[in-house]
């Protein structure tokens, strides 16, 4: 780029303007669309969060920080936040550990490994609606096959979706299952990028399977693990479809995690302003999570 700049500098101002125009032309579509559907709404969300906004988007009285004050005093919102963080905790580590396990056993060169890789990736092709519907059936209090299977082992039926201590776990289980596909694909790709030479050297040194796994594989995989952690956390914060189909935020508000809460406040109760304040908090949390991860992650991650 430096070289280019020098040449254009000689040819003068006109040429630079022309290139700028051309560049803008190519990115104009993206720029306009992002402006309309991302920048503008982000600003509007902030704006709405200081007003009473009714269904249909009519902006009413200015209320200042009232919505935010109400949020922090509301026991429901506190419950929703606790639920959201618990949900992240239930899903992210589990989906990474399971996907890593699957990626490690599927990275071996064996006959028919392609079949297994396909199966392990399959949940990427399963939509939220379809996946959640299957689990709704599996969890069914009287028809559900999960309880039938537990009964076979002499374990009492679990109230998967009707007990508020279990419901969030059940939604999380469904979510983990649906996220395994994409995590598996990324982690497998990462594993295959690790040079074989390193393992050969380790073999010569007489390193065992586990020491190779923990001394070579996982450290070298850390940037990829870091990446799946970020998308896992962000994905967990954005969960909606499973909740809508499985629990509708219940029982006793135990699965009313943040995006569902925003949806319900805005579109079911018509409190667009109050919901916007929640959306802003969602935005801030994701921002903080990402920044913190980059700050801390950067140091620990081992780049090849």
């Amino acid at each position, binding site marked *: 780029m430096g070289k280019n700049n020098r040449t254009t500098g000689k040819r003068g101002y006109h040429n630079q303007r022309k*290139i700028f125009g051309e560049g803008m032309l190519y990115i104009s579509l993206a720029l306009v669309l992002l402006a309309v559907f991302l920048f503008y709404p982000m600003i509007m969300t902030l704006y709405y969060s200081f007003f009473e906004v009714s269904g249909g988007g009519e902006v009413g009285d200015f209320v200042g920080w009232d919505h935010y004050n109400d949020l922090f005093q509301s026991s429901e919102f506190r419950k929703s936040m606790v639920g959201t963080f618990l949900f992240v905790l239930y899903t992210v580590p589990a989906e990474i550990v399971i996907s890593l396990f699957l990626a490690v056993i599927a990275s071996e060169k064996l006959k028919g490994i392609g079949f297994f890789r396909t199966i392990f990736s399959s949940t990427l092709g399963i939509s939220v609606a379809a996946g959640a519907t299957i689990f709704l059936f599996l969890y069914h209090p009287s028809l559900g096959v999960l309880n039938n299977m537990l009964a076979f082992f002499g374990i009492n039926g679990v109230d998967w979706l009707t007990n508020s201590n279990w419901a969030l776990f059940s939604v999380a289980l469904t979510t983990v299952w649906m996220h395994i596909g994409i995590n598996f694909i990324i982690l497998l790709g990462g594993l295959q990028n690790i040079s074989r030479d390193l393992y050969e050297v380790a073999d010569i040194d007489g390193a065992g399977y586990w020491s190779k796994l923990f001394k070579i594989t996982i450290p070298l995989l850390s940037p990829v693990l870091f990446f799946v952690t970020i998308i896992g956390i962000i994905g967990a914060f954005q969960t909606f479809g499973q909740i809508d189909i499985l629990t509708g935020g219940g029982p006793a508000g135990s699965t009313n995690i943040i995006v569902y809460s925003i949806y319900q406040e805005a579109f079911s109760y018509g409190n667009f302003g109050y919901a916007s304040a929640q959306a802003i908090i969602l935005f801030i949390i994701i921002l903080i999570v990402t920044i913190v991860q980059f700050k801390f992650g950067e140091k620990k991650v081992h780049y090849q």
Partner: protein
Amino acid sequence: MMKKVTLYVLLSISALILFFPVLYAISASFMQPQEIYAGKMFPSSINFDAYKEAFDSIPLLHFLSVSFWVSFIVMIGQLVVCSLAAYAFVFIPFKGRNFIFFLFLATMLIPWEATIIPNFLTILNLDMINTYPGLTLPFFALPFGIFLLRQHFLTIPKELWESAQMDGCSRFRFYLKFALPLSKSSLIALGLYGFLTTWNQYLWPLLVTNDDTVRTVQIGLKMLIANESSSSWHIVMAAVVIILLPTLLLLFLGLKYIKQGLTSGAVKG
């Protein structure tokens, strides 16, 4: 040898557990209601009645076609918008491009759900509820897609562009004849990714459709649950299987490309 056996056992058990929900859905779709009440694992006979009833209960074919078109339009839109922008960031040295690229990257921090209220109002005010543009337009500009394609364009040697330039090749021609063809694997990865994620969308189509003419299959499924779940789980499961087929097929066919695309995003990112 021992290691191989262990691996195969582990692989098989994992595959069985992981795929169990889908297998059971298929199995249940062939059952009679009584068999479901009795908690059976396998149907006593194979019949396709539930599939027929699923098609009768909701306009499933129509919903599938809507989902297909919505996903297809988003896919094409993303490929065009993202490749143009990515091309500019790599091959056009305009002033401020680093800043704009950084701005685009920063938008990855904005969760789409946080903007859903004004976006819904925008679509409402533009009279685009229940329309294809309303379902697709907001997703054309995908920062992740721009990033992915930019990474790939960067691997195209600059010399190629310089020599093409000497031959009098215009920027747009170079984009069409060299940049795009040389990035096919990334384009395919992005296309598949766009198609799959759009097909699987739930919240947005739930908000902007309230008419069967543009209802996607995911929302159709929600309707079907409301409609049939009291007594007809076999029908619901049949519909689930029908809905799963196209995306699973697409995934299996394009798995390699998705893997490449996603991995480059992760490793180089």
